[in-house]
Every structure is written in C-alpha cells, then in structure tokens.
C-alpha cells in the first residue's frame, strides 16, 4: 500500500516537472540505441544496418516515450490540459461568441447565486444563535388590536415563566420602543440614539456573549439599580470610534449618567432579527418592577428544553395561559389572555416568526431565478448547436484522423465547462456586488439582510450550478455530435441536407421552450407588478408626500397630572406655532405614534347608552395627538380638530375613524355623540377617514385619537407638511426647537413617504427582482429567436435567391421569414400560457387585488412577446429581402 502511495506522489511530482524527466529519458534512450548499434556492429553489420536493426528492436521511440510518460505521470490531466489549451484557442478565435456566451452565463449564474444567498440567509440557514431550533416566539393568537394584544404584562410574564414546563427559560423585550428614543448628551451636540429594553436574561437565553465587557447582572434589573447599557457594534464604532476603553465608563443618556458595561458582538444585530429595516444602537435592562402598572408591553421569547416540540409547548401553554393575570393584584384581570375562541397562544419557532411570512415569496423568487438559468441553458445549447453545426466538418475531420467519439464529446463538454466556469467567475463578482449592496440597504424591511454574505455555501452553490449548467447546455450539442454520421457530415454541403434540417428542428424546439419559459416569467412578473401597483394605489387615509416627522424632546414634569398636562399643552402649542411660522411649512402637529409603526390599544370604548353582544367590540388602536396633526398628515376629517383649549379640566373629547364610527353608530353621524372611553365620557368631535395604521395591505381596523392635553402621550413626534422639500427645512426647524429647548437632539427629519416605502419594501423588492428576471428572460428569448431565424436565413440564402430570381418580391420574402418567426413565437406563447395558468395559481397568495388569471396581464404578455419576437425576426427578414439573387446563386 505504502509503495503505491509513494508511486502516486511521484506521479504528481512527475506531472509538474516534465522537462527534466523527458531530458533524462531521451538521454537514456539514446544511450540504449547506441549500445544496441555497438553490439550490432560487433556482430559485423554495416553501420546503416546496425542502426536500422537497433531501431526495429527498440520499437517506436515516440510510442515508448509516451508510454513512459503515461506510466510516470497523470495522463488524465495531460489530456485535460490538451483539451483546455485547444478549447481556449478555439474560443479565443471566436471572441464574439465567447463574450456573448460568458455574459449570458454570468447573468444567469450571478442572479442564481445572489438569490441563493438571500434565500439561504433568510429561509434555510438557522438563526445566528446557538441551538436556535429551540428558540420560540411566544405570542397570543392574532387579533385586531395590534401590538397591545400581541404582548404580555410583567405579571403575566412571570406567571408564565414559573408555570410552564416546556422551557429552559423565557425572556422578553419591550415591544413599544421607538426609533431615536434616547438622547446622548455630554459629547457635543445632543445625538439621538435608539435603545431597546430587554429582560436581564435576554442575551443569556439567546446565547449571545458580549464582544467586550459583560452582560447585565441580576442586580442591574432591580429597581433603583445604577443604569447600565450594552452598545451595539456599529454604534460603538460610529459614535465611540471603536474605543475599547468606553467599557466601564459613563455616558449621558437622556440627561442621566449610564455605565457602559459591554459591547455586543458584531454578529448580533437586534434589528435584523426582531425588527427588520430598523437599527438598534444599544440595549438596556428592563426593570420589571417599574412596569407592573403598565399594560401589555413584553414580547416573549422562550428557549425550549431539549426534546420538547412546538406542539408540546402549545399544549403546555393551553393549561398555563388561562390562569395568567394582567395584574395579580386585580383578580378580574385574570384569564384575559384567552381569546373568545378559547385559543390561548400561538407558540412558533423563532425562525418561523422571523421568516415564515416570506417563505412563499422567496420560493417564488427562487423558482423565477431557476427559470432564468434554464433559459440561459437553452439559449447556450442553441448557440453551441449553431457552432457545432458550423464546426461539424472540423469534428468529422478529427474523427477521421483517429479521435474517438468519447474524446470529441469530452472536448465539447470541456468547452461547455470552460464557458460556464468563466461565466461563474464573472457571475460571482456580479452576485458579490448585488449582495454587498443589498446588505447595506437599511430601507428594505427584510430580516437578516445585514448578515448576508457570499460565503462558503454560496461558493459551493456556484460550483454546483456552473457544472450543472455546463452539463445541461453542453450535453445536447455533444449528443447531437456523437449521434451524427461522419461520412454524411463530410459530404453534407450544409444546405438543404437531411442532417442540417434535423439540426434546425432541434433548435426550433429549444427556442419554443425558451419562449414558453419567458412567457411564464412575464406572467408571474406581470401579476406581481399589477399587485404592487394596486398596493401603491391604496388610499392610506393620509398623504405621505411632502410630510416629514421629527422626534421632539420635551419636559412636562410637574407635581400632578393636570399641571403636567397644562405644561405640556403650553410647550406643544409654542412649538407648533413657532414651526408653522417658518416659511415653507403648511401645517404642523404632534402625535405619539405614527401610522405603520408600532401601535397599541387601551381597553374597549363603548358608545354610551348602547349595548353590543359579547365580543362585537374590540379595542381600537390609540393615538395621542395635538391640534394640527390631522392636517399635517393630510388625513380627512369630518367634524372639528382638537383645539388647544381642550385642556385637562375641560370636556373630554376624542376622534374616531370611520370604520369604528360605522360600528358604534351604524348609519348615523357620530359627531357630537358620547363614547365611554378610558374611564370617562368623551364627546366625539370628529370622524377621520380610515388610516392604514397597522399595515398597508391589511384591513385598516379601528382607531381612536385622544388630545395630548387630556391624555399622556408616550412620545412626541412632530409632523410637518411643507410646500418645499422637507429636508431643506431641517436646519430651521431644529433651530426653532433648540431655541425652546437646548436639549433637543439633532434628530433627523424622516419623510413619512419613507415609512410607507419601508412598509411596502418587501413587496417592492420581490417585484423588482422578478421583473428584472422577466426582462432578462425576454431578452434571452428574443436573442434565441433572432439566432435561429438569422441562421435559417443564412442557410437558405441560395433558396431565397432562386425564389427571388423566379419573381418573388422583397415583401413576400420578408413576410415569409416573419411568418416563420411568428410560428415559433406563437407556439411558445401557447405552451407558456398553459404553463402560466398552472404556475400562477401557486403564487395566488402573493397577489394583492389581482386574480391569477388576470386577463390584462396575459394580454400584455402576449402582445409584448409577439412584438419582441417580430422585432427579433425583422432583422434577419430584412437581410433576406436584400439578398441579391445573382450573388446568392453564384456563391458556392
């Protein structure tokens, strides 16, 4: 065994060091012949005869040399090297073909690798936590009252954790954090930052170790503890220049000194997993005892014990949840976490929560990009087929000179592999660029996008599809070649012979399948595009354009609630009046929550004096706003807006949306009626048109608006509507705010339109990609059509010449060629339409307001494909009509 290993090693060495070994062998063989000649001379032969006899006994010198080389080296690789050199030479000679082929392959392979990386990151790969399959998302079944019904109170959390037996541990984070909720001071201008409060065991449960410093201690999650913070890696680099000494020192957050206890690892991005499309700069410990009196604020995450399944966790929850209390001091709040159908909880894996919604879209995307690769293969098969047709004589010649058929097919496959290899390298570069760009897009709300890389898996995938592609597109021409008859080929003059026609039929079939595939892609893209346009057309209930929001810092501390409300009213009125006076500002107002962001519900308001069946009413989403907000958002109001005079001691007032009003007082005007809400009688002063508060595509649901002077807001977002681009006012608005409050951080204006964009960004992302693929498919299909028709015209030059000589007009020739094109295209379209009907049913759930059989889309597809086909056919048709009969007949 050892001896054979040794031989293998020597073979490899011999492969790489041919020259000295060859010299050695030549010297040895020369000596051999000389010795033989010497001996023959000694026997008395003439010098000539002696040499001749020596040569005869030796056998062929070249054969001996090759035999020795094969014995000592790696003959397989030598042949491969020959094939490679030969292929590179032939491809180099045909630079046009090579460039087109490599570019097409690069697009196809690059698109596939990029989509693979997206799918792999979001869908396939486990979440970036140890034993992430044990992590689950714990939430009540979906309801209409937004985030408030998707979260738990502090008491409910503790009870759940204590009584459930399925979990190693349960943790949670504050669901109601908003962007720029913190203010970093003491380092030049106040800077906004985004922080999330998490329970003390959050990092430990996920299995995240801080890169520097330590996690929170139990003491730091108790009331009265010194505040501490863990910085996210990007924020640490940006704000503190990656200074490791920051750990252990103090920073000022919202005017209070806070100790930095650590820096999170680069691999942990809170936003990427839990709130796609947003950044989180730091995490702070959530002190449960501070939150007992608040409502449902916690989003729960559990780590199941090993061996426990999600079904078991759900069964466990069904016994625990009915006993949970919103607050254990109030027994009447017990049992409220079970919905009216008796369903208590939907435990799902964290992975499902993060990426489950995207599964169908991603699979559709993957199919689309796979179709592109198929089209690329068909297209290249076609190109190679045309080439082999042109090269059939060369192959016949080589076969006649002794090349085996296997060797020729191998040569063709080598050629295919080289082309797809070059395409893969270029495509990889292209995919790298796309992935790099995508992973730096903050505005696309897809989870884990920031963690996307071209990694080892993507590289393996590239190799795999490159080889698969090469085999697919190299095989057809290879087999055609192998099945051909050499004598026929050598005799075949290229025009009108049987083999040539067979060839053409095969190419026509390929083009038809290409058109059919492109057709499916176009229908898919068309349906998604129609859905997207429908989504963009939705009346959101507000006008995103020309509006922007900025987070405002204020101080309404006062001895009691009423004084605080009065103080707040004064501050907000001052700010609104100041900002409205700025040139370019049309309207301004405050809200605490913006639509399409976080949301919450408080209790169930009831119209006074009316009774509704149990479960008919639910909690509307709550917004606490100032006068002017409705106008600044461009919402439509019936009745009156809040006034600054709606203070803490005057009549309580509310506004509700049209959907809620319709249920509260069906068929009647709600304005002026009394709603029992938030523990008091409120006069409904206005009804606003429905706002898409929770999602763009979903049902608007119910909303209720309270004035900031009567109800404490959680935050203050200043919304302004401008007649000039909002960004140009950022400076003057900030200046005005700073004059009133020097602590105002340098928050940036966030255009409201950008929030809408973010909400529709996943749909936009998929439409854009599928649309791009469809365009690519269309281009490739038209190239295919052009190739086949142009080749056909070239082959029929003589025939066309004869027909023209016999009196066929130019128009007639042109129509003939265009007719052929049309037949190809129509057969392809027919096949594609049937396939599309089947495929589009599969993506029905991805569509919005569009039927999978949407006639518009199909008609548009047919028109588009036919037009493109005719354009592709027109160029060769024009060439055919310009054939000069004399020249055509004389050639050959």
């Amino acid at each position, binding site marked *: 065994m050892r001896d054979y290993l040794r031989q293998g090693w020597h073979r490899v060495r011999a492969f790489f060091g041919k020259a000295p070994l060859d010299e*050695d*062998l030549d010297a040895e063989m020369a000596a*051999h012949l000389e010795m033989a000649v010497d001996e023959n001379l000694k026997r008395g032969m003439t010098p000539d005869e002696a040499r001749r006899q020596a040569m005869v*006994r030796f056998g062929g010198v070249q054969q*001996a040399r090759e*035999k020795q080389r094969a014995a*000592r080296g790696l003959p397989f690789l030598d042949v491969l090297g020959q094939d490679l050199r030969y292929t590179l030479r032939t491809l180099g000679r045909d630079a046009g073909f090579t460039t087109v082929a490599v570019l097409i392959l690069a697009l196809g392979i690059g698109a596939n690798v990029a989509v693979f990386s997206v799918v792999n990151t979001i869908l396939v790969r486990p979440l970036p936590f140890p034993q992430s399959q044990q992590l689950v998302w714990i939430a009540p079944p979906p309801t209409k009252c937004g985030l408030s019904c998707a979260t738990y109170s502090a008491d409910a959390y503790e009870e759940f954790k204590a009584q459930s037996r399925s979990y190693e541990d349960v943790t949670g984070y504050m669901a109601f954090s908003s962007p720029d909720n913190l203010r970093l001071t003491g380092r030049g201008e106040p800077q906004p930052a985004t922080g999330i409060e998490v329970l003390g065991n959050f990092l430990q449960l996920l299995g995240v170790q801080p890169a520097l410093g330590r996690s929170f201690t139990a003491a730091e999650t108790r009331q009265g503890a010194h505040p501490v913070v863990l910085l996210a890696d990007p924020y640490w680099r940006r704000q503190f220049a990656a200074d490791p000494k920051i750990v252990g020192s103090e920073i000022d957050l919202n005017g209070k000194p806070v100790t930095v206890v650590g820096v999170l690892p680069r691999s942990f991005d809170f936003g990427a997993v839990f709130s796609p499309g947003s950044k989180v700069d730091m995490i702070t410990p959530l002190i449960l005892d501070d939150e007992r009196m608040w409502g449902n604020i916690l989003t729960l995450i559990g780590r199941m014990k090993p061996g426990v399944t999600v079904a078991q966790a759900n069964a466990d929850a069904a016994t625990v949840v009915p006993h949970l209390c919103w607050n254990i001091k109030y027994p009447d709040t017990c049992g409220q976490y079970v919905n009216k159908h008796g369903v208590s909880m939907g435990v799902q894996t964290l992975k499902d929560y993060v990426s489950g919604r995207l599964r169908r879209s991603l699979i559709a995307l993957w199919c689309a990009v796979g179709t592109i690769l198929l089209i690329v293969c068909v297209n290249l098969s076609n190109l190679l087929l045309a080439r082999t047709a042109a090269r059939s004589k060369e192959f016949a010649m080589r076969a006649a000179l002794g090349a085996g058929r296997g060797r020729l097919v191998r040569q063709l496959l080598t050629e295919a592999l080289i082309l797809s290899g070059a395409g893969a390298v270029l495509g990889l570069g292209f995919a790298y660029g796309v992935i790099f760009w995508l992973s730096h897009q903050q505005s696309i709300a897809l989870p884990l996008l920031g963690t996307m890389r071209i990694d080892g898996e993507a590289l393996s995938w590239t190799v795999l599809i490159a080889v698969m592609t090469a085999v697919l597109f190299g095989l057809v021409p290879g087999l055609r070649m192998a099945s051909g008859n050499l004598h026929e080929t050598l005799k075949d003059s290229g025009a009108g012979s049987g083999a040539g026609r067979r060839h053409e039929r095969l190419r026509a079939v390929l083009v038809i399948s290409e058109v059919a595939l492109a057709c499916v892609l176009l229908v898919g893209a068309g349906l998604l595009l129609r859905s997207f346009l429908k989504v963009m057309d939705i009346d959101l209930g507000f006008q995103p354009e020309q509006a922007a929001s900025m987070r405002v810092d204020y101080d309404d501390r006062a001895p009691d609630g009423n004084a605080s409300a009065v103080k707040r009213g004064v501050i907000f009125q001052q700010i609104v009046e100041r900002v409205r006076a700025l040139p370019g500002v049309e309207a301004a107002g405050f809200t605490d929550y913006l639509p399409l962001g976080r949301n919450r519900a408080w209790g169930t308001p009831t119209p006074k004096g009316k009774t509704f069946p149990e479960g008919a009413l639910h909690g509307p989403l709550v917004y606490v706003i100032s006068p002017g907000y409705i106008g600044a958002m461009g919402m439509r109001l019936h009745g009156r807006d809040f006034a600054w005079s709606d203070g803490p001691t005057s009549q309580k007032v509310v506004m509700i949306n049209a959907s809620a009003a319709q249920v509260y007082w069906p068929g009647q005007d709600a304005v002026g009626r009394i709603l029992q809400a938030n523990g008091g009688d409120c006069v409904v002063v206005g009804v606003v048109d429905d706002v898409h508060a929770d999602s763009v595509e979903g049902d608007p649901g119910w909303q209720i608006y309270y004035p900031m002077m009567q109800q404490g807001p959680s935050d203050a977002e200043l919304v302004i509507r401008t007649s000039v681009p909002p960004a140009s006012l950022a400076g003057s608005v900030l200046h005005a705010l700073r004059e009133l409050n020097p602590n105002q951080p340098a928050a940036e204006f966030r255009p409201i339109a950008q929030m809408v964009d973010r909400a529709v960004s996943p749909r936009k992302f998929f439409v854009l990609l599928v649309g791009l693929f469809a365009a690519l498919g269309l281009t490739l299909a038209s190239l295919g059509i052009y190739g086949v028709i142009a080749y056909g015209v070239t082959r029929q030059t003589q025939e066309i010449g004869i027909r023209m000589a016999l009196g066929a007009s130019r128009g007639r020739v042109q129509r003939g060629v265009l007719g052929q094109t049309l037949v190809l295209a129509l057969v392809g379209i027919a096949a594609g339409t049937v396939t599309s009907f089947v495929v589009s049913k599969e993506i029905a759930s991805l569509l919005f307001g569009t039927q999978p059989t949407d006639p518009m889309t199909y008609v548009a597809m047919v028109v588009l494909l036919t037009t493109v086909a005719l354009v592709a056919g027109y160029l060769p048709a024009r060439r055919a009509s310009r054939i000069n009969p004399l020249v055509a007949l004389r050639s050959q």
Partner: protein
Amino acid sequence: MGDSKLDLLQGTLDLMVLQTLAAMGEQHGYGIARRIEQVSGDEVLLNQGTIYASLVRLQQRGWIDAEWGVSDNNRKAKFYSITKRGRKQLAEDAAYWQRLAAVMGRVLEQSRE
C-alpha cells in the same frame, strides 16, 4: 516479429525486470531488455522501448533504484538495481506466478483428457 511470439500479460514485464535485476545485479535498460530476450529464448514479443515505462513504474514504487554511471564500453548509461523492498515484492510475485502456473497447468492437463 511473427505470430509465434508471446504477448506479454499486464504486469509480467515488471516481474521479469525485477527478476533480471535480482539475478544480474546492477544493470542498464538495454542490458535488462537484452537479458530478457536471451533468457526467454526470443519467445517474448518485446519492443525494447516499452521497458522504460516498466522501469519508471518500479522506480516510483521504490522497488528499484537508478543512478547514472558508465558502461563497459565507456558509454554514459542509467544503471538500475533492485532494492530490499523490491526483493520482497519479487518473492511475493514470483510465488504467486508459480502457484498460478501450477494451477493453470493442472487445469489444462485435465481438460485434455
């Protein structure tokens, strides 16, 4: 070369070369080829050139060594010698061949009955 000569079976040439080197000691390629021809009574169909593929194979396996030297009639030639491991291999292969030959002989004897 007539039809009457024996075609060499795969691997037999390697064995012949080993045996020749074991019997003759250090020898060059031409010497080995001639020796095989003489010993076989010119019954083997051997293109002398093919011996070099065998020699390089044996050398790579470490069964023979090679060194450039000067021949009797003052020519520069590469001399081969069998190694310890080569002798071991030779013993194994020779035993195998003899057993095979004996068995073949018995089988063929019987079929002639």
